[in-house]
């Protein structure tokens, strides 16, 4: 079963390097002045509404407008381009890399993203489960619903008109739901993750494996 080997490979990769490397790029042109050094600890935004900004990474100025750029996640500064200090940089230039230690949840999420078949949103709109699926959800519970290509699973509410969205892709069980009913989802973001019924037990095994390994 080559899927098996794939999973082993993935786990081995995460075991060896359980980090996510976040590249910080400049938002526009300007003069950069770093406020962190190599190996510094940085924090992400905190507070109930993410209203307390993260650590100050660098101060960016253009036309006497000083803007402070804060860190999006917590972690350690792993790479920094010191030679750009005080100088002019173009837009989109990678200036910093933060090594963010992956938490258990994030590892599971990224594995699932790779393994599951993701059904993406066709338009930027609000999405709801269709009544059929809704009733099945209530009766059978999660992770017990099988869908086939051609089923109407999701209702898209675009400009106040409800349109049925038909599933195309592998037949299987709805494993994870990535949207909230009534919240606008951008075009192309995954809505649901589907896996074949045979693979389900395998995935559960992987997840327990990961949960046990990482604290």
């Amino acid at each position, binding site marked *: 079963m080559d899927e098996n080997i794939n999973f082993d490979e993935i786990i081995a990769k995460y075991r060896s390097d359980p980090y996510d490397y976040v590249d910080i790029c400049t938002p526009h042109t300007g003069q950069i002045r770093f406020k962190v050094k190599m190996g510094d600890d940085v924090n992400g935004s905190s507070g109930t509404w993410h209203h307390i900004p993260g650590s100050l990474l660098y101060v960016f100025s253009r036309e*006497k407008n000083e803007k402070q750029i804060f860190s999006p996640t917590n972690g350690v500064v792993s790479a920094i381009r010191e030679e750009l200090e005080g100088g002019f940089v173009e837009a989109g230039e990678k200036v910093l890399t933060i090594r963010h230690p992956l938490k258990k949840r994030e590892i599971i999420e990224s594995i699932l993203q790779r393994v599951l078949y993701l059904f993406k949103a066709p338009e930027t709109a609000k999405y709801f489960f269709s009544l059929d699926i809704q009733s099945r959800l209530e009766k059978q519970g999660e992770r017990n619903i099988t869908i086939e290509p051609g089923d109407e699973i999701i209702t898209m509410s675009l400009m106040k008109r409800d349109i049925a969205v038909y599933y195309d892709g592998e037949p299987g069980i709805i494993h994870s739901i990535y949207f909230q009913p009534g919240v606008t989802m951008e075009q192309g973001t995954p809505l649901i993750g589907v896996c074949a019924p045979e693979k389900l037990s395998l995935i559960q095994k992987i997840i327990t494996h990961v949960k046990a390994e990482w604290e």
Partner: protein
Amino acid sequence: MNVAETEGIPIHFYIFTPGSFPVEDYPGAAQQIARNLYAMAKLQVPMISVISEGGSGGAEAIGLADFRLMFSHGYYSVISPEGAAAIEGKIREGEKVPAELIEACAERLRITAQDNLKYGTIDRIIQEPLLGAKRDDFAFFKELKSEIIRATDEVILKTKSLRAFRAYEVQLKKAGGDTTEEPQINISWDLNKDEIKRLLVYRSRKYRAMARDYYAGIPSPSLACYRKIRNISATIYYTFRYDLLRNHQKVMEKVIEDVSGEGSVLLKRVSAPISAAYNFISRKSDVKGPRPPLGRVAGTPPEDPYEFWDTYTSPLANEDRTVTCPNAEKHGCKDLWVPDLYGEFGGVCENCGFHFPLEYEWYLKHLFDPDSIRMFSAEIESINPLNYAGFADRLQAAKARTGRNSANITFYASVKGVECVVTMLYSDFRNGTVGAAEGEKFVRACEKARLKRRPLLAYVHTTGGIRIQEGTLGVIQMPKCTMAVREYIDSGGLYIVVYDNNSYAGPVASFLGCSPYQFAIRSSRIGFAGYRVIRETTGDDIPPDYHSARNALKRGHIQGIWDRREFRKNLHKALLTMGGRNLYYR
């Protein structure tokens, strides 16, 4: 209070609060205090309030009474000494405030009963036993009861016509001090219509006279005499012009309108066959004349929609730099170049419409008709009545910097031809805080607006609340100004409040919050207490947009949000369509 008013029973208020609970969610602390004060201003029963622990606005919410008593060991303050010390010492959140600073502030704020009696914010002190009254001190409670009954008697007696002997008797009781259960003097607590009227007049006079000695700018006796004569003649003139002539004119107009209406219908009926025959014979093709533009009454000069006046450059626009709009993440606004932003765009982001704070002179120039601003009461000056240490210099610096004497500017102005009276609290003078002088100017503006039958606009550019350095003299402005507003609205005026930038605390909870028409400029912040105070009082964290104008609108505290560039147009429309049956142009 409504029940008491219906039944005609006097009310006794007991105030024992460290302050109000500062959350904004409906119904809102500030709005309820304003509503209370507005109702109490003209409540038709006698009210007595006793202050045990009085914390600022929360205490004043039920403090607008005919007689104010206070326990000798109680306190009545504008802000707690800890809060004042945190502000004075510029202490950050989480740091400890030094105890000596708290002591010093408690001393300076003059929160004791004796101080309050001296400054006139309370009427009488009830003496407690030496170390303060305890919970089981029943002798003290008996004394308290008799004191309150005596106060109620005094208030009621003042309204009665036959009172000489009973008043004397009540006075005598003060010296005696022997408290008995049964009342010895027969005073009926039911008031008839005339007595109620007198009660309201005395209450109005009482609050009008509060903090009278605590601002500068009182004219010399000869000037005061001249002013008095001028006021009396103005009253006579305006009464004649608006009450007598205008009513007469209105009645005449109505009669003429009715007669002409009837006449025209009659004429049409009679001449219909004749005109039909004439049209048939002549058979002229219809020539349509030029149609008048929609919405314009024939005969009025066309309005200039662009209104190019003398250019006014904001001093903020003289820097050569760019700023980022705070909504840049959400709406993708590009950076704004400051000369463009504060010049052409009027401080508004061109992409999302976020309003950057702008100085009050911009509004003076752009809101009112050119050359229509005539200031009055400009000589009333804020002073340092409590001799608060270190405050006199800061006050002097503010006066020198702004060139004005107080944080409130009152003036006559016209908006597209509609004359109105405006009071403006602005940020440059002590952050727009309200003290005795500002309250007095506000009350005078209400009186002038009532006299001349003009609408009253309260434009609040910034207000930081009550000036803490003026202590309870500032808190007393809350009921004083609310009383003036109530009288103005009852006489048929139109009171509009517009909030801008930061409008917080005391004024919002009293004379601004009681208006039926409250609007805000976009991106302004309106609230009762700031973030830090809410966090420290309730312990809960609050979202960063808690005080935004949009949330105030959602909660129903304001009726609309206006764009700064549409302010003039919207204000003109509001003046023409809203409220006030007794305005000069109705």
